């Protein structure tokens, strides 16, 4: 710090150099006194940055009417068309499959939160190219709050998309009971995890095309091998392993076990959740897995992001 200042000073400065030196010493003392204040200021600045990015994601979510409409229609189509179709196709005597729609409901919730959360990740890649993020990088805020704000925004948007779907629960026999609030909390966490993963891929991908390809390759198999669409507990060999390490498995199972009503956990016991060496982890542990994943993804993303070019 000091060598900077002196080296930048002219070699021939004489009389006022001494004066500057005393002034500099005073300044150092003043700076030390102000240091704790500055640290508090730094935290406030970080919180402001989180808020700005969160607000921006929420504004984008709220302003995009087409996307809102799509996000409500898509899960409904899944639930009503796909679910009803399968229900009708399965012979009546196989009673277990009668409530396929109810079984499918947690998966539909998952899809609802997934879309906007992924969009937040995609917005990072575009922003990096098109600039909004570059502009943020010149602002006097540290890097971590920027990504945290985006993830919180994505989580909020995801939650916003999930609420209308949750309201449809009555159609598949989910009673409107206070447990639904717990489901909302879980969905918020899951949306946060999705956004963190999207952000991580976005930060590593660099180019929008790469992001799209990676996301496309990952999301479908993960969703299908999570027990969201069909019971995944009985899958053989390596597929079973994939199911067990798939974070979505735990997200779906936690939702399924928290949702009130009999039908959801049904399919005659075939929809059993994951087991760890014969032990069934409680919902709290499953949620814990999702939370750990979210935090880990966000941390790695922040690390990569802060390193810069």
């Amino acid at each position: 710090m000091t060598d900077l200042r002196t080296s930048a000073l002219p070699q021939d400065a004489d009389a006022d150099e001494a004066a500057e030196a005393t002034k500099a010493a005073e300044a150092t003392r003043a700076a030390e006194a102000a240091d704790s204040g500055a640290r508090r200021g730094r935290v406030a600045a970080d919180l402001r940055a989180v808020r700005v990015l969160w607000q921006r994601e929420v504004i984008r979510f709220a302003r995009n009417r087409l996307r809102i409409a799509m996000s409500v229609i898509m899960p409904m189509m899944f639930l009503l068309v796909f679910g009803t179709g399968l229900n009708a196709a399965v012979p009546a005597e196989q009673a277990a499959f009668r409530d396929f729609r109810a079984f499918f409901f947690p998966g539909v919730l998952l899809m609802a939160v997934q879309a906007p959360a992924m969009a937040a990740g995609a917005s990072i890649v575009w922003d990096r190219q098109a600039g909004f993020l570059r502009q943020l990088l010149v602002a006097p805020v540290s890097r971590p709050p920027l990504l945290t704000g985006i993830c919180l925004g994505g989580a909020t948007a995801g939650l916003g998309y999930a609420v209308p779907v949750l309201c449809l629960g009555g159609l598949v026999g989910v009673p409107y009971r206070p447990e639904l609030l717990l489901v909302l909390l879980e969905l918020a966490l899951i949306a946060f995890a999705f956004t963190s993963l999207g952000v991580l891929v976005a930060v590593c991908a660099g180019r929008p095309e790469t992001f799209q390809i990676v996301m496309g390759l990952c999301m479908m198999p993960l969703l299908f091998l999570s027990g969201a669409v069909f019971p995944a507990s009985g899958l053989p060999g390596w597929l079973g392993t994939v199911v067990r390490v798939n974070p979505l498995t735990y997200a779906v199972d936690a939702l399924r076990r928290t949702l009130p009503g009999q039908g959801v956990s049904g399919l005659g016991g075939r929809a059993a959740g994951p087991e760890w060496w014969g032990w069934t982890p409680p919902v709290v542990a499953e949620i814990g897995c999702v939370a750990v994943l979210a935090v880990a993804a966000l941390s790695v993303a922040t690390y990569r992001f802060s390193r810069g070019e």
Partner: protein
Amino acid sequence: MSTATGVRESGPRAPGSGERLAVLTEGLTKSYGDRQAVTRLDLAVPAGRTFGFLGPNGAGKSTTIGMLCTLLRPTGGRALVAGYDVRREPHEVRRRIGLVFQESTLDGDLTAMETLRFHADLFGIPRRRALDAIMDMLELVELVERRHTPVRTFSGGMRRRLEIARGLLHTPRVLFLDEPTTGLDPQTRAAIWAYLGRLREERDVTVFLTTHQLEEAEHCDRIAIMDEGALVVDGTPAALKAVVGSDVVTLRTADDTAAVRAVAEHLGLEATTGEDGIRVRVADGAAWVPRLCAALPVTVHSVTVTPPTLDDVFLHYTGRTIREADSEATVFPGRPIPRR
């Protein structure tokens, strides 16, 4: 903190003159793989001035701005901006600079108002003061009526104006503008230049801008010319033009070939022929006019004296020959051709 800042900001001085410096670079270098985008750049930009950075495409202007704004990590050398080292104290640098990128960095989903409010929030400007500043800025760039419409619906020029407003909102010490006036109509361009001039006078802001437009560089207090990553020359526009020195005297005559021969024989000057007559390069061209006319055996229809333009300087220093400069730059005398 303010005391500390005061001392720090008076930190770097230009050797000799003792002028405060807003930007100081020493051997600043950036390479991408083996390609050097910026090579050992030494710049000293006095505080409170308008500094123009000129160069053809790919000269390294944007890369330099990126390093000065802490977005790109230099691979060599160092840079001080507003008294702080860009590598060691990027946070302090960012607090004191405004930046308008070459490409638009607006979010189309946000309104102009939201864009500026978010920016004020990021810089920690208190709400009440932020609102006043935002309205001032919107008035300046004439976007008050459009403040609640999404930026997506703005024209290119309106976006540019909004970005300039954003760059100025937090009253930076140094404002970096990467080709600020590309895509603007002449009125807006003039308005922005007028504002930049006022800004420099009233608030002592240093403006660091890049441009391809040589007319624009004439507005600057100092300019630097860059080519292929290296600094070619810097100084005031007048000083640079003085280096090139010579005026161009253009004479329309009845017989150009005879005129060229006569100028060479009687005055010992080399003349070239062009579409608009013969051209002679001499220092103090006006004083030469009577002698030229007297020496010519043919009828002279008209005489024009053109002082050197920055375009001449540019061509002179970027390694192109004066002959080339003659044929390219004086086809439209006095109107420099922007090189893209």
